[in-house]
């Protein structure tokens, strides 16, 4: 499963970059594609949040990795998104972006901090205690993909989806562009 989650993280990262480009470019050729992606944004964001939640529960409940403090902070940002997006999909509520974007950005910021702490553990302290340390790397694929990086990919993709949804909602297509 580590390899699967790692490849999903790569996929999520690539998709997030593509979405940001799609959101920022205003060429007529991409406007309809942006609208279509925005139409799919809520169910896709729900799928991303649900996958991240399932992955995090897999590591703690199946693999028995003890979540550290920073892992818990990231969970606090990710888990509610599943409920929020489920309701938003049911209600077709695009306004969810105003709640989901801050949560995903905060979660992503914590992931970045956690990841660099794993890379440079000396800044935290010079010792490990027996409790789950934030500096330990339970998973490391290809020498650099750890659990916080996987979480970062998830948060980034959700943020990119919400940003795309926001841009598309603010710039409705003309009849000519829509046809």
């Amino acid at each position, binding site marked *: 499963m580590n390899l699967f989650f790692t*490849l999903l993280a790569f996929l999520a990262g690539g998709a997030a970059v593509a979405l940001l480009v799609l959101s920022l470019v205003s060429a007529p050729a991409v406007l309809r594609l942006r609208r279509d992606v925005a139409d799919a944004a809520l169910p896709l964001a729900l799928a991303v949040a649900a996958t991240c939640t399932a992955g995090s529960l897999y590591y703690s409940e199946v693999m028995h990795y003890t979540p550290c403090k920073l892992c818990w902070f990231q969970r606090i940002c990710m888990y509610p998104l599943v409920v929020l997006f489920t309701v938003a999909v049911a209600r077709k509520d695009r306004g969810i972006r105003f709640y989901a974007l801050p949560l995903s950005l905060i979660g992503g910021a914590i992931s970045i901090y956690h990841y660099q702490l794993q890379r440079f553990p000396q800044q935290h302290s010079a010792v490990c*205690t027996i409790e789950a340390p934030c500096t330990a790397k339970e998973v490391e694929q290809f020498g650099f993909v750890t659990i916080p990086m996987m979480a970062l990919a998830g948060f980034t993709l959700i943020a990119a989806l919400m940003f795309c949804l926001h841009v598309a909602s603010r710039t409705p297509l003309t009849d000519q562009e829509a046809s």
Partner: protein
Amino acid sequence: MSPNPPKAPARSRAPWIIGSVVAVVALLFAVVALLSGTGSGGSDGGATGDAGRMGVVNGPVTITGAALPAIAQTGADPAAGKAFPTLKGSNLLDGSPLEIGADGRPKVVMYVAHWCPHCQAEIPVITKWIAEHGNPKDVDLYAVSTAVVPERGNFPPASWLEREKWPVPTMADTEDGSAFKAAGLSSFPSFVVVDANGKVVTRTSGELSTVQFEQLLAQAKG
């Protein structure tokens, strides 16, 4: 002639986008499952996949003598001057008997945990120092592998130390960390400096530079 009717807005391709994403993820899962099935036992082996090469992970340790008081975060070490308990156990790397106790020689005992990044950083530093200077003539070096948690990665500890070409005799602590507790320690890596009479000179925790490591050796010699 009637005018052309206005074009209807094109239907959204959102269902196709969602379907494509689901298909890509399902394909990815299938490929990984196929690779894991034909591979050598899956990719979650960071924790347990090395079961065949684990060797000794934990071992029985017989402790003779009183446990040292808990290490103080600041101030003088309350264990200074107290007898270091004798540890009888087995070598993590080859399973041979190993004893760390009062034998008339000063010693430095290092306690490491395989999952601790600071221990992972310290081991190569000391390995390199020994490669450059040789084993210290007047001070014996020992290590104790403790706090083994397979789920925390870099497991088993024997594989890690073999990979690092660790030249120091290393005892496998018990599952509940008896040797670690008997030394009154609370974090990793930790060092206990013992003089020739078997008395504790000092204890310290955290990553050491080579200069700090040399200071510990000098303290052991007295």
